[in-house]
């Protein structure tokens, strides 16, 4: 655990909830960890504790060989000494400083000549050249986000902490920046913790996900595993999708994308220009189960496989079938009885192309 960014702590608010969190991110191998959960789950509090803006009541926070917080030994490093880059939800740009002034703000430890070079470097990286003399008020939301990110990156932090980095943007800007943000993070290779309540954002940006609700960590692991195989009903309800599988785009033609999930090929709507890695997301209620082989159907995806598990969910029955990957389906109890759906039975699943949602991952990670 020594080479990790590891934390396990508890923060109590008087008259409020108790926030408990534990996470471990490798710092040598680059990874984006997403803190995911509904509003009020305590995600931002966890991020603030990691930054040193809040002092936990118990536990520890280690980063590489440094101890940032240890309740037992009475150690608490203030944010100034933690080597972090923190992005606030609405960016908290200094309104009385220009773009260049904001980026240069944290660079006083750099030699004078290096400061100017670093600012130019970041203006370049974040595509802000020409805006260095503007004040934050004179920038668009997307530009402000890039300035805030440039400012957080300026001191070459050991860990980046991003609090809902895309939430205050309008939808088109958000989608564009989501891809760029992932690309920048991959290029920078700085371990990153991102707070979000947006499922698509979590899948598009994260490698690891930590699901939180009511101040507790419910599940953590690789994104597709947590989203695709929630540990329990609570997590399933929070993550809100049933089947999530990593896939690769094979080709895009006529607005339809063909993707490969392991040995299986699926056809989905290509809403955005797509290439490389994606996540395939399918809601269980969008999957139709047929007995035997289907000869004619409007559904573009026909997947043959066998039923692995059958479980009751109120008036519905949840099936997990193995069709080269694990696909979840939700059918009524009556349908289940009529079709005699039991474990081990061979069935065909039908999924229409628009029901398959593709979340682009941008770059390929090795």
């Amino acid at each position, binding site marked *: 655990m020594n080479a990790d960014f590891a934390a396990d702590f508890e923060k109590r608010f008087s008259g409020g909830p108790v926030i408990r969190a534990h996470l471990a991110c490798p710092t040598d191998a680059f990874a984006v960890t997403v803190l995911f959960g509904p509003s009020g789950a305590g995600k931002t509090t966890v991020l603030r504790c990691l930054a040193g803006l809040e002092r936990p009541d118990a536990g520890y926070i280690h980063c590489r060989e440094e101890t940032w917080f240890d309740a037992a030994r009475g150690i608490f490093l203030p944010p*100034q000494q933690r080597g972090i880059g*923190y992005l*606030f939800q609405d960016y908290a740009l200094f309104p*009385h400083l220009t773009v260049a002034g904001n980026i240069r*703000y944290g660079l006083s430890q750099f030699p004078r000549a290096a400061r100017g070079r670093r600012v130019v470097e970041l203006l370049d990286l974040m595509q802000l050249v020409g805006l260095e003399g503007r004040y934050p008020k004179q920038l668009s939301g997307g530009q402000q986000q890039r300035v805030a990110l440039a*400012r*957080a990156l300026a001191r070459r932090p050991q860990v980046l902490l991003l609090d809902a980095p895309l939430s205050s943007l309008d939808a088109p800007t958000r989608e564009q920046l989501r891809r760029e943000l992932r690309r920048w993070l991959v290029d920078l290779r700085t371990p990153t913790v991102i707070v979000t309540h947006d499922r698509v954002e979590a899948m598009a940006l994260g490698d690891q996900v930590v699901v939180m609700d009511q101040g507790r960590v419910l599940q953590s692991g690789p994104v597709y595993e947590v989203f695709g195989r929630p540990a329990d009903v609570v997590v399933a309800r929070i993550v809100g999708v049933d089947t999530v599988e990593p896939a690769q785009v094979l080709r895009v033609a006529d607005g339809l994308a063909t993707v490969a999930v392991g040995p299986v090929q699926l056809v989905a709507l290509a809403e955005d220009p797509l290439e490389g890695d994606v996540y395939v997301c399918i809601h269980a209620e969008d999957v139709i189960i047929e007995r035997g082989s289907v000869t004619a159907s409007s559904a573009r995806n026909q997947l043959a496989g066998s039923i692995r598990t059958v479980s009751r969910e109120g008036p519905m029955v949840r099936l997990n079938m193995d069709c080269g990957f694990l696909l979840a389906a939700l059918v009524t109890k009556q349908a289940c009885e009529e079709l005699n759906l039991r474990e081990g039975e061979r069935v065909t699943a039908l999924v229409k192309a628009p029901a398959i949602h593709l979340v682009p991952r941008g770059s390929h990670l090795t």
Partner: protein
Amino acid sequence: MDWTAIGLTLRLAALTTVILVLMGLPLAFWLARSQWRWKFLIEAVVALPLVLPPTVLGFYILMAIGPRSPVGQLYEALTDQLLPFSFQGLLVASVLYSLPFAVRPFAAAFAGVDWRLVEASWCLGKSRLQTFFLIVVPLAWAGLLTGIVLSFAHTVGEFGVVLMVGGNIPGVTRTVSVSIYDEVQALNYAAAGETALFLLGLSFGVLCVTYALQRRMVVL
């Protein structure tokens, strides 16, 4: 025109303002940020000169700094002088009397600064003191200026407290407002009018400069 009184008043007002800035900034910052449950007691004490008659305030200050009080005895032991009816005694009274006119605008200005900007500055490696001067003061500047101007102007215009604590000693404690009062008592309206006009012009000028400066800062 009573130039001695004008000079004395300006000196008193300037010194009072300097002391109020040094004392008032930390006090106001604490008032703006503290979560202490008894904070309202301090707030009430600071605001007391706003509602108390100057004679009452002056009376208590006179008692507090008199030669029989611990403060007065300590001052006498240190300097071999008495505080009441001296310039130093007047300065102490002025600081207390004008305290709310400095602290309240300061505190309001500090409370108006977005705290996340302060936290952002900490996360960028700046100490609390650096953050105060690089972020808080520039953003609260308009309110700080208001507090400085108000405490200066309020000290220039004080009357009741001066009479109670300072008396009316020319060149030592006789301020402009007391001087005008004396001239009127002596039916010397011309002299009173000259000094009054000077004071009016000065006050108007200071306020014009203040508001003009504030407007420029708001535009920025």
